[in-house]
């Protein structure tokens, strides 16, 4: 094989290491390198290979897109497995929305975990934004219902809904999310306008399984890649994009309110291949 391919075998090895250590996964890594081999001339250099690889990976990602919100108050539902950064991402987005002149409402619909409501409420206080939540043990669907009423009566928009972390493998918890979505749709047609799945950039292949189940259950409209200030390269994003064309809308890059930015496929690619 080394004689038939343009690059040296140690250079192919280097590329393989680059992809695998970036959590692209063995299947997509093998496929990408096969496509790359097919795309190269006999005299191709490592530089050309990297340029082609960049194009191959870029073609897997959907076009950059932001939030698609119409008819206020627009509800955005934040979901994901435990500890990925949902609550913090809501706070960050709310902060940037307020900077843009919007009047977001923070909704504490995680009525399960210890101090979850307090956590989002403290963020709201810190940011000077309105918050609604219920007692721990309350029905999250009831919180959501009240939140839409509050938003309509006070002219708040968008409505950012925090939910409890949950494993996608726990059926009744996924059913609970379906119910929250149904309640939103009944309260106001077309809601939620966005269902954002928050993924931890430190994750490996399990992020793909998470995306599959949350998407099949709810219809995910976009991803948030949190904790991308970690050296982890989040290569699973390529598999998720290839299989379900889910756009990453935002990237979290730290724990402060301003540490969020719109996703750029080109910037993400640069970082992935660096």
């Amino acid at each position, binding site marked *: 094989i080394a004689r038939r391919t343009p690059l040296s075998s140690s250079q192919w090895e280097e590329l393989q*290491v680059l992809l*695998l*250590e*970036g*959590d692209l*996964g*063995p*299947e997509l890594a093998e496929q990408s390198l096969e496509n790359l081999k097919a795309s190269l001339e006999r005299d191709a250099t490592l530089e050309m290979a990297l340029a082609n690889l960049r194009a191959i990976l870029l073609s897997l990602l959907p076009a950059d897109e932001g939030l698609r919100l119409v008819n206020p108050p627009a509800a955005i539902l934040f979901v994901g*497995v*435990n*500890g*990925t*950064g949902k609550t913090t991402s809501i706070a960050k987005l709310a902060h940037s929305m307020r900077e843009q002149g919007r009047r977001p409402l923070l909704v504490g619909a995680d009525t*399960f*975990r*210890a*101090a979850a409501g*307090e*956590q989002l*409420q*403290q*963020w709201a206080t*810190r940011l000077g934004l309105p918050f609604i939540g219920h007692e721990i043990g309350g029905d999250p669907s009831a919180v959501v219902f009240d939140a839409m009423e509050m938003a309509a009566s006070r002219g708040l928009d968008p409505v950012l809904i925090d939910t409890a972390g949950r*494993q*996608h*493998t*726990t059926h009744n918890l996924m059913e609970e999310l379906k119910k929250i979505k149904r309640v939103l749709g009944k309260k106001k047609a077309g809601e939620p306008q966005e269902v954002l799945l928050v993924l*931890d950039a*430190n*994750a*490996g*292949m*399990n*992020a793909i*399984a998470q995306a599959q189940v949350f998407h099949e259950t709810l219809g995910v409209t976009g991803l948030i890649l949190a*904790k991308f*200030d*970690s*050296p*982890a*390269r989040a290569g*699973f994003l390529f598999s998720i994009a290839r299989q379900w064309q889910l756009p990453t809308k935002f990237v979290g890059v730290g*724990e402060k309110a301003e540490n969020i930015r719109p996703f750029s496929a080109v910037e993400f690619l640069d970082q992935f291949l660096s």
Partner: protein
Amino acid sequence: NLSQRFQDIIKKLTGKGKLSVEDVDAALKEVRIALLAADVHLSAVKAFSQNVREKAVAREILESLTPGQQVVKVVRDELTEMLGPGTGGITVSSYPNSLMLVGLQGSGKTTTCAKLARIFKKKGKSVLLVGLDLKRPAALDQLKYLAKQEGIPCFAEQGAGAQATTQKAQEYFRAHHFDLAILDTAGRLHTDSDLMAEVKAVQDTFRPAESILVLDATTGHVALSVAEEFKRWLDYDSIILTKMDGDARGGAALSCRYVTAKPIRYFGIGEKTDDLEPFYAERLASRILG
């Protein structure tokens, strides 16, 4: 699907009467793919594959009556050994003492502190939960809530700096003659030297019996550098692998074992305070192999 590929290779191997070195190498390629799909770091995969190959191409394996089964056994045994020691749990040899939990953001430290506190309370020890996450909104509220739920005292004060709070916590721990302090620390990136230095200072103050790296079972390749850096700064003593109630294969645990050889104590298997299970190497080996 990858685990099906691996199952097919196993079937082929165990069905064969005679095995060549080529057969073993073909099987090992599938094992490597399975391990990568399970989030084991590439370096650990290569080392593991090399260890297994040396054992698997031995004459007595290839010429045995059931060489295929022998090779599969070598793979399982080698993985179990690399993940070992075999069983978990934490033993504190003398009191008063402390345990310190550290790790990346959101890995499950605060919840695991409460789980461990429950275990030691059941053993008859007087436990003090100590909240040292002064940054995350409502982190102290979270620990206080869990402590109250378990009927365990909690030191959780906001308002002073990290160093002053650590000192105050230790004074409180000593003054009230508790057996065991369980220290909850803020999540941090292994690449943040200020925060790593901060948690090193906590370790220097309390000198805990165990500094425990709390690692999310979904962690990917970054687990290797996490293990290396936490070892470099703290020389942590052990690992707890959380969120094993999901379907993450947990290969990150092997990556950590490969670079630091620190024992894994427990699996976190849920959000409740009794959702902690002693580590079993064989169980994790089966899960990683898929």
